């Protein structure tokens, strides 16, 4: 027996329990996004990605104004200057050196990064919008609609991307919007498949049935019940679509189908640098490092988000 406690008659008085109090929830309300953020925040890889990306973004905005000249001013007397540690830190001279037309490489790299990012974001958004729309329609309606859309997707899958992009860019003048559009038109297929699979799984969930029995319209079911529940995979798809688009844009510029000079994107700068690779390697290396870092950070963030949004996917 518990000797320490003095038992008294008074302690055996009945107490009235308030049963309503039973329904109080003792744990604090943890919203979905808060929980996602908590998991994301604890992921070291993802946080490294965020920091790297933040640094790159910072320089894309501030960088160009820190250079000696703007991105297209040529100074033919100062061609192919190599950067030095001192000039990089002090900014007295060209921080990243100059290219073979004597343009400030520092300004060009950050300006090019901005253009690349703009194309990538635009492409990713267009691609996701298209993929999600087709995916939801295909999965939700099923039957003949699904059959037709899936066959169309299969046919499109079998056409090499590059050919489609090249054809599109021959018709349209290469620029930010046409390139983004071309990328979106060729890359929406996987998104549509992912979203369709999710919708197929969700549409037989009882809360969707409940909405149907209440007389909810197709539109309402898709936007209120299905889309918010596939938002996780969609966000992850965006995070992986962006680096793919950056890389693809660089590739297009490299084969001469990208942004036209004197405009600069990372791909254009790398292409220029590649010509002098053996003599002035910094002209290729610097933009390549920036490109690689950017790809890495997007992938790290994407992985982190996937784990945070769907903890079951983790090993």
């Amino acid at each position, binding site marked *: 027996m518990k000797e320490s406690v003095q038992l008294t008659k008074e302690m055996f008085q009945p107490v009235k329990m308030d049963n309503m109090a039973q329904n109080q*929830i003792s744990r604090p309300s943890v919203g979905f996004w808060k929980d996602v953020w908590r998991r994301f925040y604890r992921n070291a890889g993802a946080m490294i990605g965020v920091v790297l990306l933040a640094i790159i973004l910072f320089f894309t905005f501030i960088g160009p104004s820190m250079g000696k000249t703007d991105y297209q001013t040529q100074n033919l007397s100062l061609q192919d200057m190599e950067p030095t540690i001192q000039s990089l830190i002090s900014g007295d001279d060209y921080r990243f050196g100059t290219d073979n037309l004597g343009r400030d490489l520092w300004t060009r790299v950050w300006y090019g990064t901005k253009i690349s990012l703009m194309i990538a974001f635009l492409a990713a958004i267009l691609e996701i919008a298209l993929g999600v729309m087709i995916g939801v329609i295909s999965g939700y309606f099923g039957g003949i609609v699904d059959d037709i859309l899936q066959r169309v997707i299969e046919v499109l899958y079998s056409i090499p991307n590059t050919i489609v992009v090249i054809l599109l860019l021959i018709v349209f003048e290469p620029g930010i919007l046409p390139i983004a559009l071309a990328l979106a038109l060729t890359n929406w297929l996987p998104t549509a498949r992912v979203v369709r699979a999710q919708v197929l799984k969700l549409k037989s969930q009882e809360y969707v*049935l409940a909405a149907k029995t209440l*007389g909810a319209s197709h539109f309402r079911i898709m936007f*209120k019940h299905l889309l918010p529940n596939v938002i996780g995979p969609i966000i992850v798809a965006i995070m992986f679509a962006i680096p793919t688009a950056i890389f693809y844009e660089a590739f297009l510029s490299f084969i001469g189908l990208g942004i036209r000079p004197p405009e600069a994107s990372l791909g254009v700068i790398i292409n220029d640098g590649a010509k002098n690779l053996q003599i002035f390697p910094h002209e290729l290396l610097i933009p390549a490092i920036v490109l690689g870092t950017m790809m890495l950070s997007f992938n790290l963030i994407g992985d982190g988000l996937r784990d945070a949004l769907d903890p079951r996917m983790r090993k």
Partner: protein
Amino acid sequence: MNQENKIQAVKQEELEAKKKEDKAEQDIILDVQNLKKHFKIGRQIVQAVDGVTFQVRRGETLGLVGESGCGKSTVGRTLIRLYSATDGKVIFNGEDVHQLKGQKLKEFNRKMQMIFQDPYASLNPRMKVLDIIAEGMDIHGLATGEEREKRVVELLETVGLNKSHLERYPHEFSGGQRQRIGIARALAVEPDFIIADEPISALDVSIQAQVVNLMKRLQKERGLTYLFIAHDLSMVKYISDRVGVMYLGNLVELADSDKLYEEPLHPYTEALLSAVPIPDPKVAKTRERIILQGDVPSPINPPSGCRFRTRCPKVKDICSQVIPEWKEIKENHWVACHLYS
């Protein structure tokens, strides 16, 4: 002089009350005629529900029991148009449910509602309780703004929750609480008829009783009619006025719930009742149980004649050749079995 008038009035009232009672006896809210639902899976056809006929009276609870795969949930879902019927008719309030369109369909969506089995899957995880319960009101434009919130709070209180839960998300609630939210969502559109599809199967014993008592109270207060689908015979018997027993897509017996228990006619009902464990050691150790051999056959290729014949302890020759007729053997006691023809 007033005296006489009063007596007259009272008599009149009594007469009218009696008439009403008689009418209530006859008042059929739902009439299901030879309902069939077949699913096509690949090249095979699953005869999930194959010719089911029954009526539900206004204000009563009709229980539907059977083992998994017997088609009881399919019946429920076909009644409320989640599935289209392969054949047969569903007459609700005098109208053929599967022919409804436009305004009539909207009306139907309000008048018939459903409560689901899985309290974890039946609430949208991304919606707040307020929006979940108000969904019906939003769809039918019943209330907006403050009025909407006020009504949701009322509903929450009706089902034993309160205002503090409005802004919470489903995952913060226990199974029983979620089931209450599901009930509140159904009540929000003021239905007459509620299909409860295994509403308590996923809940703990002590919570089951809470939900069943809540459903009983709501029925009394709001004059609801229930179709209560479950596999737990003791709970179905407890809550239902009448019980229908299904086996492999067919109704095999339908009777008042006490009658069904006292005097089961169909051999399947008999076996089912004897298989239910009774939480009383003395009864459990002494009673004779009918243990059915084997498993339920596949609904893709069901046995000919009576579908229960492969497991029936009282099988006769005729059972494999002729499908037994669904008929009223005694008053209010329907059965489909060759033993009674």
